[in-house]
């Protein structure tokens, strides 16, 4: 570009340490008017920390932020807001019980002015919706909206506050490929109107598709700043992980007998689900989160029972069904949320390792055998490479990856015939992901029937021998490995295949 557009935001040598960990090491970046800048990096590369500093949630140890030529006061979220920076977080910050309009104006009105200006606000929202292609009903209650709609509300919220810079943190993680396309259209409209966008992602194809420039972070450092049109996916990937990652070739599983069978099952949000999990096979479940995956996981994990329909394990109809029965029936469960349901933060590693088996393996006559619990946990942390100070350490101090390895170990030590892996690598770094995937494949090869639920389509397609898509509580027919591409699965995720089939 000959006449350089004006710089709207510059971060200058931002450094942030957490104890011994350097989360951001002299990170600098420059955002121009009308530019989409992608911030690319693995989980834990320092992207979120950097944006939290920009937004005043953290104070940098050194470095400065300038927005529109003026320095930004550190440590005050209001400074960023009033400077015209709007952020759309990965986890939405909306009030479920309020309407779209109320959510958008929340915090912008004076204390005693409620009710006045509502009509004006409504008109402005309607105008912004039209201009940016963000269709959403202002009177709808947020609790009833889909994830994609909620995201639009978040963007509208930022625009309503006159944001000139939009920051989106992993915005497509919760969207179908088609919804993501709609989001990109909105972003193109925004930059055409002179806004600037920072797009945080670890998905290369999206970055290549939408971004003008791309800043790659690794271990808290900027390892590359490139113009997207002059680079390639492979080059970006290499920068991101530090070396060329060989594409892992996974040998297909040898499908055995049916271990778990659902037919015409209704429960919670599920309608007429039919599913077969076979020994020696990984069955993948793709879909945008919130379409019934949690309900299906709850059903298989023993937290819910079918209202109607057939539920069989090894050919026997399931009658009594609770988590305890599920564990006894040989269902190993890796929960979706390792902090909320997978572990007890204030318990030690040893106690967490025995959480499911304390009564059956480590107690006699109601008395705990703590020596056995500790030696079991010691073996487990060695076998599963859990990095920790010892089994008496509280689990809250472990990183997500090590916590997940402990959960994985707890499950696999019982040699379960059926494994329910719900978002097993969410939020983990590359090394931990490889470990978890390796163990799941090993379990499959040893004859376990694995159900893999993930929002990451690449993960599902890479690992699974058979893929189902879940949408609005319905389950698609199974697709064998290699018979469906991203676009095809995306259509099913959007619910189209179900209509065609009907």
């Amino acid at each position: 570009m000959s006449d350089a557009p004006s710089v709207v935001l510059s971060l200058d040598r931002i450094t942030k340490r957490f104890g011994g960990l350097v989360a951001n090491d002299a990170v600098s970046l420059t955002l121009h008017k009308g530019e989409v800048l992608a911030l690319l990096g693995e989980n834990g590369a320092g992207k979120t920390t950097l944006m939290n500093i920009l937004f005043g949630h953290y104070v940098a140890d050194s470095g400065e932020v300038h927005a529109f030529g003026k320095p930004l006061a550190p440590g005050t979220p209001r400074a960023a807001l009033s400077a015209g920076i709007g952020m759309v977080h990965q986890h939405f910050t909306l009030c479920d019980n309020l309407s779209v309009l109320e959510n958008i104006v929340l915090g912008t009105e004076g204390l005693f002015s409620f009710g006045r200006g509502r009509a004006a606000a409504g008109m402005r929202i309607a105008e912004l919706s039209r201009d940016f292609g963000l269709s959403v009903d202002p009177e709808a209650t947020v609790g009833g909206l889909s994830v994609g709609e909620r995201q639009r509300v978040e963007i509208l919220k930022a625009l309503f506050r006159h944001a000139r810079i939009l920051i989106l943190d992993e915005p497509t993680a919760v969207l179908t490929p088609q919804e993501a396309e709609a989001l990109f259209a909105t972003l193109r409209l925004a930059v055409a109107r002179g806004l600037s966008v920072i797009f945080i992602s670890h998905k290369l194809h999206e970055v290549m598709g939408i971004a003008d420039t791309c800043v790659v972070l690794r271990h808290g450092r900027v390892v590359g700043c490139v113009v997207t049109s002059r680079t390639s996916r492979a080059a970006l990937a290499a920068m991101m992980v530090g070396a060329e990652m060989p594409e892992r070739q996974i040998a297909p599983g040898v499908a055995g007998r049916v271990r778990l069978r659902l037919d015409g099952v209704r429960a919670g949000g599920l309608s007429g689900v039919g599913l077969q999990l076979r020994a020696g096979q990984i069955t993948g479940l793709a879909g945008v989160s919130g379409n019934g995956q949690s309900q299906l996981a709850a059903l298989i994990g023993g937290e819910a029972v079918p209202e109607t329909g057939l539920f069989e394990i090894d050919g026997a109809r399931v009658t009594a069904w609770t988590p305890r029965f599920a564990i006894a029936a040989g269902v190993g469960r890796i929960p979706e949320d390792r902090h909320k349901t997978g572990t007890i933060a204030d318990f030690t590693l040893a106690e967490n390792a025995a959480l499911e088996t304390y009564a059956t393996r480590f107690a006699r006559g109601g008395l705990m055998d703590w020596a056995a619990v500790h030696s079991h946990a010691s073996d487990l942390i060695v076998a599963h490479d859990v990095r920790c100070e010892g089994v008496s350490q509280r689990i809250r101090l472990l990183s997500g990856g090590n916590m997940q390895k402990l959960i994985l170990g707890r499950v696999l030590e019982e040699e379960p015939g059926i494994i329910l892996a719900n978002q097993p690598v969410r939020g983990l770094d590359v090394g931990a992901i490889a470990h978890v995937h390796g163990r799941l494949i090993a379990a499959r090869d040893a004859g376990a029937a694995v159900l893999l639920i993930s929002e990451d389509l690449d993960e599902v397609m890479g690992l699974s021998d058979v893929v189902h898509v879940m949408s609005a509580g319905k389950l698609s027919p199974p697709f064998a490995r290699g018979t469906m591409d991203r676009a095809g699965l995306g259509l099913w995720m959007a619910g189209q295949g179900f209509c065609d089939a009907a």
Partner: protein
Amino acid sequence: MRLEPVAHPSLARRLGYPGGALVATVLLAMALAALAGADPFAVLGQIVVGAVGSKFAALETLNRATPLVFTGLAIAVAFRAKLWNIGAEAQLYAGAIMTVLLGTGALGGPLVLPLSALAAMAAGALVLLGPVVLKVRFGVDEVVTTLLFNFIMILFVGYLLEGPLKDPMGMGWPKSAALIPEARLPRIVDGLRLHWGFGVALIAAVAVWFVQTRTTLGFEMRAVGANPAAARFAGMPVRAVLLKTALISGGLAALGGWSEVAGVKGHLSADLSPGFGYTGIIVAMLAMLHPLGVVVAALFVAGVFVGSDAMSRAAQVPTYIADMLLASALLFMVLALMLARFRVVR
């Protein structure tokens, strides 16, 4: 300003802050004494002497600590499972009622004392079971129900003392008939008021500690309290654990009533408990819910009460200073425990 957790609180940190809380409490008490026009050092000295300065004073402190150990344990057990039992007062009175029902002649012989203890525990357990069943079945908030039960129970006791349990020889006083001698807890030291209820309280503390640390039920109770969602996911019977916790907690509080009737008063009256059920909350919190810590905390709280009584007689400073002392001790301690675990960053 934010709080960041300290990954590994040093020993100095973990002892320094609670120690500081104690110093702050003492300083505040001295300031209050000065405000009341007395010499703060003399007041402080008299509280200490009044609490532990003589054999009589020390035994009186142990005596006063006994019901607080029971109610403190009851609350520590319940709170550990995040079961907010505010109704130890009601459970204590339930135990006292059973002790009087069985101990005034309905039973005789050497078994009357253990039987009345068991009956008291059963009654206290039932009193707490009601609210907890409502909680696990219908999600009714147990803070409200257990708290309100206290008032129901006080009024019920008042009715009993004016009606069915009224002492016919009581010259019209609202109190029950006296326990028969076999139903009384014997004294540990002849001539002094300290009775074997204190010994039972110590045994109860050790028993609770054993259950919490060595049994599957204790593991479940801690897990349910620390993270009920994870406990449920791991296959623990969360509702059953809460019900069992309620039985233990209610039973322990009721033993406090049993020990006060059988060990101290010898009859039931409406002023049996000067709020032991509520003070038990302070005891349990000061002890950080640790059952053995409850014994120490109960002795501290009892010492402050007994010492303040003695000081008040000598120095003319109102005994309300004891309540101020305990309240500020609790507040400082809660703050100190938080500061020991978290670091304040700007």
